[in-house]
């Protein structure tokens, strides 16, 4: 029961010619291609016919609404209005964002240009340089986020900070705060 790999097999070869070196298994996979090359037209295709965007939008919104409702139900907290529901299992209390670890208020997504810079410089082998960069990065996001939280009535931030005060969760499931 031996397996042969004929020369003229396209599918298998593309799969198997990807990784040769051991120490850095995927270095050659991650060359400039990701950043610059446009996708080959052959791989760009619609598989199952045209998509009705209106219908899709309705479906997705419906799903997300249902998810939101389920989360509101289980947490006793209305995430769309950012108010606790009456007779909830949990006692909700507002907490000052300053008392919380910064990652609760930091932006999740650094800007694209920053990403690219870190990526390019990340290869030059200087960790100090990189740490420096990431510090700058968080600094910047902090600056951007904090005023927004203080001067506007930014309720979404509030609701996040409120989450900290949910002490009686017996399950280890993560709080569905995105719903």
């Amino acid at each position, binding site marked *: 029961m031996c*397996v042969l790999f004929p020369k003229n097999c*396209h*599918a298998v070869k593309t799969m198997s010619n990807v990784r040769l070196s051991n120490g850095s298994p995927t270095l050659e996979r991650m060359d400039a291609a990701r950043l610059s090359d446009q996708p080959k037209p052959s791989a760009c295709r619609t598989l199952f016919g045209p998509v009705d965007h209106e219908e899709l939008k309705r479906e997705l919104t419906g799903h997300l609404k249902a998810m939101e409702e389920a989360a509101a139900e289980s947490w006793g907290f209305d995430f769309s209005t950012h108010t606790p529901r009456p007779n909830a299992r949990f006692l909700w209390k507002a907490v000052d964002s300053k008392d919380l670890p910064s990652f609760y208020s930091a932006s999740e997504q650094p800007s694209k240009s920053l990403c690219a810079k870190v990526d390019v410089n990340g290869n030059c082998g200087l960790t100090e340089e990189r740490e420096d960069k990431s510090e700058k990065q968080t600094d910047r996001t902090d600056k951007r986020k904090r005023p927004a939280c203080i001067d506007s009535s930014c309720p979404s931030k509030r609701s996040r900070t409120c989450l900290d005060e949910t002490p009686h969760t017996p399950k280890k499931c993560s709080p569905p705060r995105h719903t």
Partner: protein
Amino acid sequence: MEHQLFCCEVDTIRRAYHDANLLNDRVLQTMLKAEENYLPSPNYFKCVQKEIVPKMRKIVATWMLEVCEEQKCEEEVFPLAMNYLDRFLSVEHTKKTRLQLLGAACMFLASKMKETVPLTAEKLCIYTDNSIRPCELLQMELLVLNKLKWDLASVTPHDFIEHFLTKLPIHQSAKQILRKHAQTFVALCATDVNFIASPPSMIAAGSVAAAVQGLYLKGADSSLSSQNLTNYLSQVIRSDPDCLRSCQEQIESLLESSLRQAQQQSNSTESKRVEEDVDLSCTPTDVRDINI
């Protein structure tokens, strides 16, 4: 020092070294336990889905593999994305016209989990020939996360391959090629519906065994003979040797049939593909070495 800085400024990524301390039995046992939690339901085509049939999974899987290869994703991204897709389809009735969107969302997530520079939503939408929009992809992503209960740390066959390789008495140089073949088998399995219910450890063991056979690797002793290897690996993954043997045979016949298919395809398509093939056969792959 600064000079060095300039020299190294190329668009490669930094990745962590393999931690040899993680290749021990305690970790392996934990993985064997953990993998159970990430298995899709084996019969979701019958029980959950009404529109989606196995053939469509194959179509979307083939497309996803193509995208992952073209974007030079890490090897793990594709099997991981397929695990998300199967798990989603196990719990959520989905329309045929949403399947590509789902596939894209799964690649989006898997890429974020495993890559330093993940695929972007825009790029994935281009690969759908712009039949979906980035905002739809983001919403779908949220839906998938929710249905998977935000648990994306699935164990994949790739996690096991490294463990098996350290256990086999094979020279370092042979290991690289063995790893590559095993990974190819894993990707192949991920495209095939018959492996949906197989635990990742089984697929990994079957793939490594098939790769050893295919490469005619011989150890110093007889430990790499087909039977010994199967027995040994089945002990490692705490499974029945016959089970593993049949998995390996299934993998080998899957390879044969997809080779046949690929051959037919390349015969029927015109010179363009042929040229491409000729090009590829010039690249220093293992293909010829195996064809002893």
